[in-house]
């Protein structure tokens, strides 16, 4: 029996606020979510590890960027063989800029780790190894740019009110540092690994968590008051289909639980829960990115004003009055 595909062409779509789906639904949406998460955690871990002179953390941060950020992005593309074209327009496109930041970061990070590697110490002349710090600083600068650029990328999308907010730039930076510290503290507790001065990271971690909470609340308030699309996006997160993922997954796991545990650890009351709390924080950041992508809604095309324009020249506000 022959099957015929039927499309609902004749069913006119009602004009409502529609959520974007290309960057959130299905397998490709999952790849982008993974890349967004890794593009935040990886550079954060690398920067904090370089600051703490923690080679294992730098290596893991580099690998997260290379495998968790680069590979999913490549697999997400519709025409993977043309990925190199992605760097052609850094003058206007944030994707091009991010592509360039990622590649330069990986280059400098490789050099830094090679110069700092104890295994290669005998093979590298001293006249070259003195460049460890300058090259390390350069790699950290590009790690910072890599963590920051998705904020600009989303903020530049005027069509989607929930993304069109410059609070995203500081938010993504703060989340990168916060998640970097979280993963660094987890790695420091791995067998055979030692980190000096890890306890000094608790105070900045608490600062990053509080800042992150304030920025998220500010972003929700800003987008809620931006119009119908922004309101719909926020309502989807706080009372709609993504309520559990956002309130429990993102806000509780990313902010509330880690902040409580860090505060208890900081005053010396409870240290055993620190590592689970840092892992929960990483899950929370993943949930935040998931909710963030899924809450992106296009502005209403035929708004109330448009409808008024349609009837404006007829001299009648209600045709059947």
């Amino acid at each position, binding site marked *: 029996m022959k099957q015929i595909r039927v499309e609902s062409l004749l069913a*006119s779509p009602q004009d409502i606020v529609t959520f974007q789906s290309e960057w959130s639904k299905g397998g490709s949406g999952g790849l982008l979510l993974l890349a967004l998460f890794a593009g935040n955690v990886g550079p954060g871990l690398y920067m904090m590890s370089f600051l703490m002179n923690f080679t294992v953390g730098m290596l893991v941060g580099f690998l997260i960027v290379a495998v968790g950020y680069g590979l999913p992005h490549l697999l997400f593309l519709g025409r993977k063989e043309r990925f190199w*074209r992605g760097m052609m327009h850094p003058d206007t496109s944030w994707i091009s800029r991010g592509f360039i930041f990622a590649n330069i970061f990986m280059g400098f990070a490789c050099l830094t780790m090679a110069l700092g590697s104890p295994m290669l110490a005998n093979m590298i002349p001293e006249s070259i190894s003195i460049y460890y710090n300058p090259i390390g600083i350069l790699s950290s600068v590009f790690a910072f740019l890599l963590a920051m650029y998705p904020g600009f990328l989303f903020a530049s999308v*005027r*069509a989607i009110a929930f993304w069109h907010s410059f609070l995203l730039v500081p938010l993504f930076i703060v989340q990168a540092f916060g998640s970097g510290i979280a993963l660094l503290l987890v790695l420091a507790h791995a067998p055979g690994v030692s980190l000096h001065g890890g306890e000094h990271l608790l105070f900045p971690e608490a600062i990053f968590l509080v800042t992150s909470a304030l920025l998220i609340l500010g972003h929700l308030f800003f987008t809620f008051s931006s119009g119908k699309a922004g309101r719909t996006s926020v309502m989807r997160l706080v009372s709609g289909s993504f309520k559990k993922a956002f309130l429990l997954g993102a806000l509780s796991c990313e902010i509330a639980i880690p902040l409580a545990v860090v505060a208890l650890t900081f005053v010396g009351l409870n240290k055993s829960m620190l590592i689970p709390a840092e892992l929960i924080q990483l899950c929370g950041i993943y949930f935040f990115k998931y909710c963030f992508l899924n809450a992106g809604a296009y502005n209403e095309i*035929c708004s109330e004003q448009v*409808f008024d324009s*349609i009837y404006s020249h007829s001299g*009648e506000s209600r*045709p059947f009055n």
Partner: protein
Amino acid sequence: MARYVMVVDLEKCTGCQTCVVACKMWNGLGPGIQRVTVVEKEEGEYPNVRRAYIPKRCMNCKDPQCTKVCPTGATKRDDEKSVVTVDKDKCMGCRYCMMACPYNARTFYKHEQWYHEEPSAWEKKRYKEHTEGVVDKCDFCISRIDSGLKKALTPGVDPDATPMCVLSCIADALHFGDIDDPESNVSKIIEARGGFRLLPEMETDPSIYYLPKRTGNEADKS
């Protein structure tokens, strides 16, 4: 240099979707790919209701967001004709343009599909012109405009140089032409009846004008 625009007379549009089907047929678009959508807008409660059909397609903006965000340069604006096109040999399928388009007027061409078990002769012929994994959008049937101009035809006046949806409209609700030419049909219509564009706050300077509804007397006079 010309600036081709489309004029949609909302008074005449009946929401019949002939333009949608004509576009799909002419461009050989498979299932799930649609360059034109007729949005239905309804408001109020009986007997105080308002209703309109608003055909929506790529607005081929003069200052488009999509060209700015495209990382490969595949999406670009043809300044000669004021049409935004996608170079299917350059697009890498990142879909940033789909996010940036305020009119949500782009579709991602995932993979080849057809309506029956096997592709028809027409589908076989036309589907070859599409590339999988890239973004698709309305380009005002630029191939028809180009071939028409080569034959010294006038887009919007001569059928062979006019977009297929405009030709197919059963209610004469769609008009096409060069707005920079004061003698063109679209210039005269807009001058006579005004018109508005969607999402002006986005400052993209779209190339589709919508004509508002008129009272019965105004319509009769015309």
